[in-house]
């Protein structure tokens, strides 16, 4: 990988010994160990809900451990609040950013510790300090930009600068790549490298194996709250890590029997649409998805795929074009009409479109069917049927923890929230399933599982449109890949070409950037 390790094995900066954290009867952390050295990138690997976040929340002072000891720079500490941990040089960048949207970058970074001159905030000093930090670690940023105007990758930089500004020597990054584009991920890895070169330590919570091998020195694996092992990343490969994480061998290769696609299910012709700024984002796009095939729509974020899916699912109106399902016109219909016509979808933003977080899991599972038998009769909900339906789905789709049918969906881990949506949409069993980044934020065990279900839909002669920023996913699942760039399809790759290695990520990347096949 060519990365240089900056780890100094002689200096231990963080040590967690036998950490136990219980919530009621539930043990989230069961004797966890962690040792982080100066300048080290230490990955924490575990499935969704394995207890990674709990462990880090203990380290950053949000939770008090039920038992166990924490040492920072060799000194035993007892954190009563996040402030105590910040004072000891530990800074956490949360998965869901905690930024105030209408405030500027500078305002957000200095929030709570504003330098003052007399009675006013000394913004100039703050700005100078921020620019100094951003130059030091090579993360350029506009200190006067408002958060709402900058990209997700930039917002993450603000979060990192925020903890650096507070003097952090140990940075905890919780699922930092979950919402980044591939380019942004590369940028982040560079930043991590710069930080460790300066002697900072980075704890990386992730379940993306590739990023661990690309960035980390050490990796601590936890499974169902228990400590499994700490390994040197250079001594293991991705399969080893995956096996340790889920406790069994993981099949990365998607098993797919050959199958001839049938008649066209989704036909899109000449779709044109504008985005919220009035800029034309779809410029006459054509697309066909047939029975029994998975069509992968590959493209860099912002080239019209989001808008296309919104149009297909009735959330957005197109200006012109044609959309039909099995010959039936569904152009510019309501979400209900497109659903009834045979389109179900796994939306990109699970918390915005996919789930009502305040609703119970069982209520989320009947979102499109709440007023149909057996869940309701004559306007009265049948709670018993709804509960049984949810219990069955939780069992079948391995949604954890069990017995949470009546709990708000917002209390599940991200991966399990996604499983609730997938369970719902796949059991809708419509002619066409649209899946947008269906495995974003999921661990390998869950990814394997989602992929299995997508292939099962295809094998059952359903049409599947897979929109994903993960090229690996597109390449391993698709029977055909369509590349979208600048609002039109710029290239097409058949499954045979993928299987026979006549194309690769490089060529797809080239097409995605607007290049033409030769």
């Amino acid at each position, binding site marked *: 990988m060519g990365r240089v390790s900056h780890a100094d094995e002689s200096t231990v900066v963080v040590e967690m010994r036998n950490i136990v954290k219980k919530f009621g009867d539930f043990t989230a952390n069961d004797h966890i160990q962690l040792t982080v050295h100066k300048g080290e990138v230490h990955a924490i690997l575990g499935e969704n809900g394995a207890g990674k976040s709990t462990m880090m929340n203990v380290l950053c002072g949000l939770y008090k451990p039920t038992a166990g000891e924490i040492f920072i720079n060799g000194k035993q500490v007892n954190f009563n609040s996040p402030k105590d941990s910040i004072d000891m040089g530990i800074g956490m960048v949360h998965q869901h950013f905690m930024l105030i949207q209408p405030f500027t970058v500078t305002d957000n970074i200095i929030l709570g510790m504003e330098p003052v001159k007399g009675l006013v905030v000394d913004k100039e000093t703050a700005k100078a300090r921020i620019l100094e930090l951003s130059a030091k670690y090579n993360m350029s940023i506009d200190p006067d930009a408002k958060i709402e105007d900058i990209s997700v990758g930039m917002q993450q930089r603000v979060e990192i600068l925020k903890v650096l500004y507070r003097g952090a020597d140990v940075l905890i990054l919780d699922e930092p790549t979950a919402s980044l584009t591939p380019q942004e991920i590369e940028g982040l890895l560079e930043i991590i490298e710069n930080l460790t070169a300066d002697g900072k330590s980075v704890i990386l919570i992730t379940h993306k194996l590739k990023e661990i091998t690309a960035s980390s020195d050490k990796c601590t694996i936890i499974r169902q709250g228990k400590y499994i092992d700490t390994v040197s990343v250079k001594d293991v490969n991705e399969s080893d890590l995956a096996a340790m994480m889920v406790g069994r061998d993981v099949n990365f290769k998607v098993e797919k029997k050959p199958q001839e696609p049938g008649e066209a299910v989704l036909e899109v012709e000449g779709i044109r649409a504008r985005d919220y700024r009035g800029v034309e984002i779809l410029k006459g796009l054509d697309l066909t998805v047939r029975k029994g095939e998975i069509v992968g729509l590959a493209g860099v974020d912002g080239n019209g795929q989001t808008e296309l899916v919104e149009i297909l699912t009735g959330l957005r109106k197109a200006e012109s074009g044609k959309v039909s399902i099995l010959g039936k016109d569904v152009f510019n219909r309501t*979400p209900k009409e497109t659903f009834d016509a045979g389109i179900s979808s796994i939306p990109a933003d699970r918390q915005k479109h996919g*789930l009502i977080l*305040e609703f119970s899991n069982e209520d989320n599972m009947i*979102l499109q069917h*709440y*007023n149909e038998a057996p869940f*309701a009769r004559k306007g009265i*909900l049948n*709670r018993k049927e709804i509960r049984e339906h949810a219990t069955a789905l939780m069992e079948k789709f391995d949604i954890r923890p069990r017995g949470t049918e009546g709990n708000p969906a917002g209390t599940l881990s991200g991966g399990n929230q996604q499983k609730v949506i997938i369970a719902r949409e796949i059991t809708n069993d419509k002619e066409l399933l649209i899946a947008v980044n269906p495995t974003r934020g999921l661990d390998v065990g869950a990814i394997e599982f989602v992929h299995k279900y997508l292939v099962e839909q295809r094998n059952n002669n359903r049409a599947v449109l897979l929109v994903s920023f993960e090229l690996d996913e597109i390449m391993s699942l698709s029977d055909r890949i369509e590349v979208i760039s600048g609002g039109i399809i710029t290239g097409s790759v058949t499954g045979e070409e993928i299987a026979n290695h006549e194309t690769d990520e490089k060529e797809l990347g080239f097409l995605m950037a607007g290049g033409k096949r030769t």
Partner: protein
Amino acid sequence: MKKIKNILETNVLYTLIAIVIGFVIGALFLAVAGISPGAAYAKLIDGVFGRPKYLVWTMVYGSPLIFTGLSVAFSLRTGVFNIGAEGQFVVGSLAACAVGILVQAPPVIHALLCILAAALAGFLWSYLVGLMKVKRGIHEVLSYIMFNWIAFYLSNYMVNTELLHKEGDGEATKNVLDSARILFPEGILKVLDCSGANWGFLLAIITAVAMWIIIEKTTLGYRLKAVGFNKEAAKFGGINADKSILTALGISGALAGVGGAVQLLGMGARISQFAGQEGYGFQGITVALIAGSNPIGCIFSGIFYGAMKYGGSKLTMVGAPEEVIDIIMGCVIIFIAISQVFKALFKKTVKGKESK
């Protein structure tokens, strides 16, 4: 230990604490004003519990408040904030008054017609605000407050029209016809020794239960809550969000409107020209907040507010100003609003003891 923890989790406890603190602060104000808090509170308690008929009066005072409380609670549960219950209460009362004066009908039917008219008036008053929200994106809180004043002046105007104004001097309407009143029969009134005892309380309880069923058990409630919590996800799921918002606001308005009818047909029998907003709608906000937006809870918090209003009206007898009730209720709301702070504090203390 577990039991203690469970108790610390429930909101009822914090509501009760907030009420106690409200009374303590009210006592401070009384003491500062040179009035013995003991005497004032003794009067308040005696004024509510002293005789059976006082309790009946408490119910009578509480009934319209249960309705406006339900109105606000229903709106909060469906993701909007009906701060316009005041206006809907006024138009409901006005509509009931007009039907009660101008229409001739047999007893029970006449009263039902009045209540129906009030529900319709409240529904429309709120629905209009909903339309502006859905079609033009105007925030409901703004338009509700303006609609409160429109209702206020509309009522004052109508009171003085020839159609409704009573004969002779005075700034009030005629009394509604006896057939429109919802008082208990003469015999029961005598037994209860309360001239204002009426069916309103029973109606309020039935309505509260109905609202609870709608919110918790029906597809309508599912739809309204879904849109209230997450409009985008509801839309994605095929629910017509605009229609749901209009329905929610309409129902909420109808509830406040019926509250107006219950007050009019049960107690006042006529509408007087207002000098200022009467506050039934705003008090409904307090009722809903104390109830934690739970319809069944609204019954109890409505009675509580009713008791405070009725008992408070007697405070002048011991030289204490009635306004002390407003101070107490205000403090209760503040402390309910910050009850999460208490919750965290209590839990910490319990935890601290545990670890020792």
